[in-house]
């Protein structure tokens, strides 16, 4: 195989160097696609088409294949998330302990459906397929911080805090 010359970084943004670093660490192997997308997601918060194209071209992965991978895994988001994210666990233990109701309340309060972001870009409402803290069900994550045996009052106060910030 001819030596790979990766395409130029999309911009001066330092985060692209981190992305490029992940690819280099894996020798620009095609199999590094998912690992690299993880780096993009953690650096930029989401994957846009530019980023997918840059990674695909760098790793010599067909564009459609890279896009197919990016959209297959639910961990990857193709839209910019809100400033804050509230993630409701919808695993079985949480379901048994009434997570559906919590989710419904949040949807009502925020006027958005799960997977969406409020129009002002402040809060994204997400669901997770079990975060593995079933012993503390029902569980939600507020900006990554885990809350166990959560109540609607707790969620309400968290939302109020974010609204002021």
């Amino acid at each position, binding site marked *: 195989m001819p030596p790979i010359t990766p395409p130029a970084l999309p911009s001066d943004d330092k985060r692209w160097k981190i992305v490029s670093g992940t690819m280099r660490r894996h020798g620009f192997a095609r199999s590094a696609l998912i690992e690299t997308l993880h780096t993009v997601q953690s650096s930029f918060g989401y994957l846009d088409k530019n980023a997918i194209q840059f990674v695909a071209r760098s790793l010599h992965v067909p564009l459609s294949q890279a896009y197919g991978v990016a959209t297959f895994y639910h961990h990857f988001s193709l839209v910019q998330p809100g400033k804050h994210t509230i993630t409701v666990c919808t695993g079985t*233990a949480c379901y048994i302990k009434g997570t559906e109701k919590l989710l419904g309340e949040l949807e009502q309060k925020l006027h958005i459906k799960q997977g969406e972001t409020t129009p002002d870009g402040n809060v994204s409402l997400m669901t997770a397929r079990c975060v593995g803290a079933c*012993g*503390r069900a029902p569980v939600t994550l507020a900006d990554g911080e885990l809350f166990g045996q959560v109540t609607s009052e707790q969620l309400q106060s968290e939302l109020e805090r974010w609204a002021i910030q």
Partner: protein
Amino acid sequence: MNLEELQQIAASVHADNEQFDFEVNVCQGTGCLSQHSDQIMAQLIKVVAEKGAKVHVRKTGCMGLCAAGPLVLVEPENQLLQHVGVQHAESVITHLGKEPEKELQCNLREHFDQQVHVVLENSGRIDPERIDEYIARDGYEGLVKALTEMRPVDVVQQITESGLRGRGGGGYPTGLKWGMVAKAVSETKYVICNGDEGDPGAFMDRSVLESDPQRVIEGMAIAAYAVGASKGYVYVRAEYPLAVSRLTASLREARRRGFLGNNICGTPFNFDIEIRLGAGAFVCGEETALIASIEGQRGTPRVRPPYPAASGLWGKPTLINNVETFANVPPILRKGGAWFAAIGKGKSKGTKVFALTGKIKNTGLVEVPMGMKLRDIVEGIGGGVPDGRTFKAVQTGGPSGGCIPAELLDIEVSYESLVQAGSMMGSGGMIVMDDTSCMVNVAKFFMEFCMTESCGKCIPCRAGTVQMHELLSKICEGRASMDDLDLLIDLCGTVKEASLCGLGQTAPNPVLSTLRYFKQEYMDHIQNKRCSAGVCTMTHEGVTA
């Protein structure tokens, strides 16, 4: 590294511990951390420093009884403290050696006494990021023994003799699998640890990786030696950041101590492990899908055969085992296959870790010998259903499993008996439901799960789960007829028999098992438009635009 050097490391750890009068282990698992056990630990350290007490405050993994968290374990008394808060730090330290405060005492004998800890033997007792503490509890003795005293074929023999079976759900004999990969002729082979614990309601693998990661690394290294692999991958869910960071640190430690890398223990054996992050796809728990994902592709399963043992990662012979399976390996090598085979019953040997959750008093992680009665787990160890409600069913096997009713609580927990009861062992989720759970709604919940997790490759699973979910919704909303029920049963048959992989083949199980034991609830929804548990809201069909 040889056995003698291991013992030296162990001795120095023990000597270090001797300096202290007490050891205070603070659970830093995901469950207790969510209740700020890190702050509690910091406060404990502060109090110890202020008092100049000879106390070692140690960060540990999960202690099991998540319901009573945050947990603290005091050694040498072996006294468990529950619901410890930052404000209790002072009291915990001052009461060392005496009886702790009443409200902190956790003396659930029935919860702990019936358990047998093999996989969890170190959980909550060692600092997961300090390899020497693992060594001090006989860690790496198995690997050293295998490398220095045994041929690969002997290792496989021990595993076969132990009767260990896959803990990921299928229950395939581990020795047989290892033997197949060992016999495959190839320069390159791989060992993969499946940590894509996707069953909602299960967290055994997370806990093991958080609490005792070295055990998994050692198990993988032993496996690699047995099958002739030099490269391994641990595939972990991205939803488990703590497990990933502890595993990363542990891999570094293992390399530092020479248990990974080249010429391990001075032998020609080379082996190293890389972590691969899952990205939120339940189907990647299926081994061929997991392999596709490690290769950087869409996690869609492919038809087997060829099995990964013959053609797996990048077409090479590949051994895939689940986290808990690998975690069982070190003690088997240390104590021998026969020791392991003596635990358990019939064709199900050893122990099984279960994540006991739902409507049960003592939620958390338990490890019991195979063959224990389900009732002893639910009512004994679990403490039964809280709030004076009635037990209705226990769900095992996740979305692939089924619901076991009260009248079958006396069955023994084994691979075979659970399948016979219309469920399966699965990876170890055990979710208890009381009379406030509607079984049709539960079936719908699992179907929704399977529907959104279906990879979309084969038609029966992709389109069948959508239609089954629609039919279950119809039943739950009181819009269904008996014809719809017949259609549902008919679809179950096709999806079960015609789907490509395990996800689709088992997707109808929650429906089939609830139909088997709770048919009356279905009839109630359909004929009387009534949900006795009060979960479903009946609506009438909207007919106009």
